[in-house]
């Protein structure tokens, strides 16, 4: 008499046997696997990756060094000489005129408490009045 456990085992063995025969249809040739393994050993993917990474890093370093070196070089614009000390002192901005606004004097001085702002703006009128 076959026990349920044995029957289960037989069923499982049968199922796995079918799976095994299905796997065999996809089996790669032994020699091919071995050849690929030896080829991989000669030039592994990790080494290939590391070479690529190293080449990229070297390229970045070279470009960065080139940019730094270029920036450090003295650059002279043709037709424009370096300014001397005196010319720097006398130099005026072309837009300095825009800083001269009407009534600018009022802002520069401290106002008198006893006088009108109009008196200072018209001094001649004031002196005439005091004289008469």
């Amino acid at each position, binding site marked *: 008499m076959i026990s349920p456990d044995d029957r*289960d085992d037989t069923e499982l063995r049968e*199922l796995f046997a*079918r*799976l095994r025969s299905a*796997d065999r249809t996809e089996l790669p040739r*032994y020699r091919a696997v071995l050849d690929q393994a030896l080829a991989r050993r000669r030039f592994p993917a990790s080494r290939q990756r590391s070479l690529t990474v190293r080449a990229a890093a070297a390229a970045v370093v070279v470009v960065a060094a080139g940019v730094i070196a270029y920036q450090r070089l003295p650059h002279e614009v043709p037709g424009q000489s370096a300014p001397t000390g005196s010319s720097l002192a006398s130099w005026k901005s072309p837009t300095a005129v825009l800083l001269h606004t009407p009534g600018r004097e009022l802002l520069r001085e401290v106002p008198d408490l006893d006088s009108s702002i109009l008196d200072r703006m018209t001094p001649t009128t004031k002196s005439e009045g005091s004289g008469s």
Partner: protein
Amino acid sequence: MALTLNPPACHISAPVLPLISTNAQKSSVTMERAQLDSELEDLHAASFGWALACCGRDREEAEEVLQSAYLKVFAGKARFDGRSTFRTWLFGVIRLTAAEERRRNIVRRLRAAAYAVIAPSDPGPDPSTALENAQRQERLLSALGELAPRQREVLQLVFYHDMTIEEAAAVMSVSLGTARTHYERGKARLLEKLTAGRP
């Protein structure tokens, strides 16, 4: 057939690869290499099946694992010491190599987690039988995919590779008791899932 080699017969002094050897070593290494070659070729189909199981049935990854495992064997990085059968030892090497590869490649690990279902490439003469077979196989793979990895491994080794639980324990590097527990629980769960999925 499981062949047990004496430890010295399988030793290749590292880092000597069988294809590259000194003149003095050449004859012995070539002979050993031929022996190893023959053993590996005999077990190639079973090794591929086991590599498939270790890689979540990813064919491409299984081939890569097999390549790495063969390289380890030939380069002497993995040495057979004669404590078990050659097949048990080789399966252990494949299992460890698959674990290493999976750690290295996280993307592949995610792919492997989805236990892919393969369809048989030869449907056979009768379409209805072929369909039934395909469905049964799909159910089996789906049920296997739901098991814990250790349970799946032990069942694969016992039912697919006709190993004893003791041999499976050696491949999995666990004690016999642990392997037996995984086997019993795994088998019960697998049968439960297969029965539940039955029309």
